[in-house]
């Protein structure tokens, strides 16, 4: 591990800015979902009403958890089918200046599932596969709606936790509409224009052709990038317009955009924690969870940075053939001969080590999956951190919504386990945690590793699965593990060396994404539904306090113990053994 003052300062300042944003964002979420007035009311309220009128939605009608969940499922399936149809027909539809052909069925299935589950795993290269119409109407639409669905599900679960009477969790259609109109679209309009100002293209013309000063002809892919980029980050989708994703200078041209894009990823996750405390009537409850995930975030960011800044020791032994003493310099320098040093393979110069590893941590803490550097080329420990972040359930600020309800599940388990240990009544927010709640939380907890480890094991024994590996040795196992971790976790980032655009990976990956999204959210909704009907008991002397540092530490402990016990055996064979072999000078 090697640390620089600047690298640590980047992590610290980023965290401080996030901290400052949390309360205002949380308060705005309260306004949107508790139907208080927002600034946009005069303009958007008529539009909102028109939406309900056309859709036949009764604004004041509340749904229980089953009706809410079924509404969400029907809506998601409708969008999934529409995207599949657009992909298959894109060669016959307008806005296709580069004449992309129709997407083949397996890839279209994988992509349709991927975008409708907020995963945005991409087995294709955007600039060579998708027409502008597909990118806009198909993919950008899902960037919005899958994010909105995640947020409203979290809001519904929160209502179950805090409501004092009744069994209803709100109305899915109303929450969805308000989330789109009042929350996502206004921020996206401002954000997209900010990105264009910084250099992100926004055009419907085809590629630009330039001739360099040396006479090389270069064809530069363009498109309506900015409008997609902002929702890609804000909605923790992560599916890039270009293959290189947020490493591409047109998606992320400056360190200003890089900082803002990272903040977008965490904004709603942090805001929802404040929202939770606020509607529960005690913001300390939200801050206790904020503290827990902040610890996990900072620890991961520091380790990932240290591992990458240390560089790849194997490269220090590579010398020039002709003059055998000349080797590379991986040390960090400031001032006159400034250079980032460290492991720069697969990283962009303007981001260096600090802004690359911070981005990698943020994008996998949340279920974003956008990348501004290639995780496959990270050192074994540096690359294990993103993978572990996803495997723990992306609950560190988390994907929009999904991270929040995932974290609530851990909070319930923490309360239950602590209750068992000290003989106190398991209660959360004054509601008794009983058989049904613990069952549902455990079910949600078990489904993710089952999908990750199950599909990975299958791919490893299946000859075709292994044949798609690009980096041999233990790193190959990491590539497969990362793929199913990312798809199950609805993250979408990759150890991209794996050639996953094959029918096998497209189909199994599609199922992993569906399981990761719905196999997880349905038990959580049931948990919220079960809690919704419960009476709130006043806190007594036997109640475990769920505010303060002790509870934060307890939540962190549960997350780490569960995560470590589940995944340590697999990681021991992948990144950990690779790290030891790297130190021993072994290559494959």
């Amino acid at each position, binding site marked *: 591990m090697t640390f620089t003052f600047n690298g640590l*300062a*980047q992590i610290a*300042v980023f965290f401080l800015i996030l901290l400052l944003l949390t309360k205002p964002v949380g308060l705005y979420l309260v306004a949107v979902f508790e139907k208080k007035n927002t600034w946009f009311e005069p303009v958007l309220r008529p539009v909102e009403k028109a939406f309900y009128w*056309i*859709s*036949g939605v009764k604004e004041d009608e509340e749904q229980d958890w*089953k*009706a809410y969940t*079924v509404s969400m499922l029907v*809506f998601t399936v409708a969008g999934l089918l*529409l995207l599949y149809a657009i992909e298959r027909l894109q060669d016959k539809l307008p806005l296709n200046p580069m004449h992309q052909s129709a997407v083949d069925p397996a890839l279209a299935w994988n992509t349709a599932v991927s975008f409708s589950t907020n995963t945005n795993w991409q087995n294709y290269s955007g600039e*060579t596969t998708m027409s502008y119409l597909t990118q*806009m109407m198909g993919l*950008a*639409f899902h960037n*919005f709606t899958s994010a909105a669905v995640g947020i409203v599900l979290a809001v519904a679960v929160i209502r179950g936790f805090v409501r004092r009477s009744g069994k209803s969790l709100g109305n899915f*259609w109303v929450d969805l509409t308000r989330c*789109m109109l009042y929350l996502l679209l206004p921020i996206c*309009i401002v954000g997209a224009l900010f990105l264009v*100002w910084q*250099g992100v*293209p926004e*055009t419907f013309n085809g590629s630009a052709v*330039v001739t360099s*000063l040396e006479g090389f002809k*270069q*064809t530069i892919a363009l498109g*309506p990038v900015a409008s997609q980029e902002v929702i890609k980050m804000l909605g923790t989708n992560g599916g890039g317009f270009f*293959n*290189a994703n947020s*490493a591409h*200078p047109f998606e992320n041209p400056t*360190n200003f955009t*890089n900082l803002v894009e990272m903040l977008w990823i965490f904004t709603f996750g942090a805001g929802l924690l404040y929202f939770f405390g606020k509607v529960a009537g005690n913001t300390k409850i939200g801050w206790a969870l904020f503290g827990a995930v902040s610890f996990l975030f900072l620890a991961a960011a520091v380790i990932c940075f240290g591992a990458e800044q240390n560089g790849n020791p*194997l*490269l220090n032994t590579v010398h020039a053939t*002709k003059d055998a003493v*000349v080797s*590379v310099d*991986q040390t960090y320098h400031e001032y006159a*001969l*400034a*250079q980032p040093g460290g492991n720069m393979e697969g990283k962009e*110069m*303007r981001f260096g080590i*600090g*802004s690359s590893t911070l981005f990698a941590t943020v994008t996998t803490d949340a279920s974003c999956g956008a990348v*501004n*550097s290639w995780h*496959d080329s990270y050192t*074994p420990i540096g690359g294990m951190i993103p993978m572990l972040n996803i495997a723990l359930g992306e609950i560190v600020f988390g994907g929009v919504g999904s991270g929040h309800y995932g974290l609530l599940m851990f909070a319930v388990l923490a309360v239950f386990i602590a209750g068992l240990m000290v003989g106190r009544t398991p209660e959360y927010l004054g509601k008794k945690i009983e058989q049904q709640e613990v069952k549902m939380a455990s079910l949600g907890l078990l489904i993710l590793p089952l999908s990750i480890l199950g599909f990975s094991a299958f791919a490893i024994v299946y000859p075709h699965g292994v044949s798609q590996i690009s*980096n041999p*040795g*233990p*790193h190959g196992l*990491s590539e497969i593990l990362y793929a199913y971790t990312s798809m199950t976790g609805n993250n979408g980032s990759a150890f991209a*060396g794996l050639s996953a655009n094959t029918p096998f990976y497209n189909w199994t990956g599609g199922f992993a994404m569906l399981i990761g999204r719905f196999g997880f959210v349905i038990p959580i909704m049931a948990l919220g539904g079960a809690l919704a009907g419960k009476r709130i008991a006043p806190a007594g002397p036997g109640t475990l306090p769920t505010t303060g540092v002790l509870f934060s530490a307890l939540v962190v402990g549960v997350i780490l113990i569960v995560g470590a016990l589940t995944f340590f055996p697999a990681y021991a064979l992948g990144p950990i053994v690779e790290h030891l*072999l790297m130190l021993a000078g072994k*290559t*494959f």
Partner: protein
Amino acid sequence: MASVTTAPAAEAAPAPEPRAETILHMVGRFIRPAIALTFLLTVVAGILYPLTITGIAQAIFPSQANGSLVYKNGQPIASSLIGQYWTQPQYFHGRPSATSPTPYNASNSGGSNLGPTNSALQAEIQANIDQVRKENPDVPDTTKIPIDLVTSSASGLDPDISVAGAYYQVPRIAKARGMTAAQVEDIINAHIQGRFMGIFGEDVVNVLELNMALDKAQGK
């Protein structure tokens, strides 16, 4: 869709006929809003939103919206944000690019994705070191090569190199152009882009900017 027919029935408990919900009711309750909102939100988020953004962007930021193209004598020579493949000795060279089929292919971005213990990575670094040494024979053997000059960038289109990476190329460029090393270093120092807020990212120099400044300094 079995769940559609069973799940909501439980919800309707207080109603007079709890289980009498017909298919028509189901369509009204779930299918209609699903289809209507999918349509409406596609129109808003998939069509109106990008068209609005494109309209405004083209009006107020026309250069950036169309790829930040740089012109010389009326001809587009580059995008200021997209790296290019430089081979001639009188120009600064960028980082290795792993795009296929040719380096700096700006319609198929990407990195090498080589893992840290893959022997192919060692071989690639070795080849890059040899290339850099061949191009810069006047740099003393005691000078180590900055890591960014021999590693592939993430996008394959990295427009920047480190300050150290630019200084490494000074002897070659000075010789090829008949300039003094100090003149070339002055050009580098004048084009260092600092960190954002003094904290985020790295000090870099944009290769295209340097090369245009070199040409300008010699009146080309």
